[in-house]
């Protein structure tokens, strides 16, 4: 039984079929890639699984539990973390606060603790901060902990977002184009970070990417989505040489 199991998921936006008969099985510790041209429905699939949309048809099981119809906050609490294609960070909040926020449900001290600084608050805060710093270190931004996010460069923001997602202790981490807008140097760093995170925390990762090199190097298994349909899946090598994938990306050869 896969950790995350999607069966025959179909979704319509009005009359538009955005996702058609989609199947997915992610095993614990597996890195799964989702590639496809713009508008293929990749982010829609992320939004469907994380509960932002509810699929028209199909089943989604996380750890054997059906998660369809649950609210995003419930699905997140069950072990699904994600980052976004265009960063969704909180202006005017510090990097540390971003990661702390992800520990919201673990904070048990209340008003009295917050206002009078009880030992319980100090203990919990110390614990949360220690955990936060270790995650920030894992993605290499611990030195920026006190900074307001609006002041940070783009590459650092992507890492903050990843640390925030990791702080929710996901079993499966969803990364929506983790290298979007990055230069080649940042891209290599991001690849190392994802490897490090994967190795350190042993979680399953599901990522959307455009850059083939990145996908080929990182992923154990890759799906190719075109117009809401998986047209090919397999190991990176299989995908790379699949004529259907080449056609979807480069177009059919018409000159003879």
């Amino acid at each position, binding site marked *: 039984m896969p950790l995350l199991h999607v069966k025959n998921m179909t979704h319509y936006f009005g009359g538009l079929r955005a996702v058609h008969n989609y199947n997915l099985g992610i095993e614990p510790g597996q890195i799964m890639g989702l590639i496809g041209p713009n508008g293929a429905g990749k982010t829609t699939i992320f939004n469907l699984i994380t509960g932002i949309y509810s699929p028209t048809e199909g089943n989604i099981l996380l750890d054997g539990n059906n998660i369809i119809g649950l609210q*995003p906050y419930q699905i997140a609490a069950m072990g699904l973390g994600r980052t976004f294609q265009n960063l969704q960070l909180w202006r*005017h909040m510090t990097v540390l606060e971003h990661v702390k926020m*992800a520990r*919201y449900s673990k*904070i048990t001290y209340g*008003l009295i603790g917050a206002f009078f600084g009880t030992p319980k608050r100090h203990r919990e805060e110390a614990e949360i901060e220690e955990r936060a710093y270790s995650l920030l270190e894992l993605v290499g931004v611990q030195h920026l902990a006190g900074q307001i996010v609006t002041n940070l460069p783009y590459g650092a923001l992507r890492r903050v977002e990843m640390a925030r997602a990791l702080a*929710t202790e996901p079993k499966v981490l969803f990364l929506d184009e983790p290298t979007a807008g990055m230069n080649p140097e940042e891209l290599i760093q991001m690849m190392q970070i994802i490897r490090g995170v994967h190795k350190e925390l042993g979680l399953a990762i599901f990522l959307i990417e455009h850059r083939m090199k990145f996908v080929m190097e990182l992923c154990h298994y890759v799906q190719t989505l075109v117009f809401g349909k998986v047209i090919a899946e397999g190991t990176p090598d299989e995908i790379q040489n699949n004529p259907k994938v080449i056609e979807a990306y480069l177009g059919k050869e018409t000159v003879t």
Partner: protein
Amino acid sequence: MTLTAFLQNVINALQWGSFYALIALGYSMVYGILLLFNFAHGDIFMVGAYIGFFVASGLLLLVASLGIVGLPSWVVLVVTIILAMFITSFVGMAVERIGYRPLRGAPRASAAITGLMIGIILETGNLALLGARRLSFPALIETTTYNIGGVSITNKKIMIVAVSLLLMFALHQFIQRTKWGMAMRATAYDFTVVPLMGVPLNTVAALTFGIGSALAAAAGILFGVAYPVLDPYMGILIGWKAFVAAILGGRGSIFGAALAGFLLGFIEIFVATIFPSTLRDLIAYSIILLILTFRPHGFFGEAHTARLRL
């Protein structure tokens, strides 16, 4: 204007501004979270004042029936404020639950109209329940007037300004130090990710309405202490003026709302000392219109508004 008269006006303006500031905070907080103005907020101020009236009357009866003598008068006032704030916060949460939550996906005009309707329901509901008579807020504390160098200050004015500032400080601490405050800040900046942190947005919305309403209730009681006549329509004008303060401070800005509330108090009081008092609002609000012409987003508002709604 002599220095004495000036200082006298400063004190009056601080008291007057306290009411605006406390009410404006509720407008601004709700806007920050839900991107809508709760136009029933002025009427929640009224409801808070009435709840304060009943709590205070009840407490006075209780104290009398128990035969407690020598209880300091401020004890009843403090308990009244705390209890009434608590009860009114549930009124605010009910308004959110019944009036606004079902309209999350609806056009924003619907939410605005709903707010106005809830306001009318609260006013006329009060009228139906209690009749068209005015109530007189119980005198919880005796007025003592201090005369400092020709400037007269009453203990009530000091109390009103002090309680307002204390509440604003407490709100600031709440937002900065508690996990709920952190969730509110995060929601105000970008709500899409907040649920993924395991935080239900409905909780944040209800909490925001609850706190805003509690602050309005505090304003209502303080108002009742200063001007002890309650009527069902008492929240309309002061509510609109506090709304102006919220806009002037910058939509969604807590600090801005508080500051602009006090500024509004100053403008109104000082305009009234210079010009005939019948022209007070005309001139005062023309000044504010002028400020907004040059600073359309208010003092601390952010220019971008292209966020989605909860």
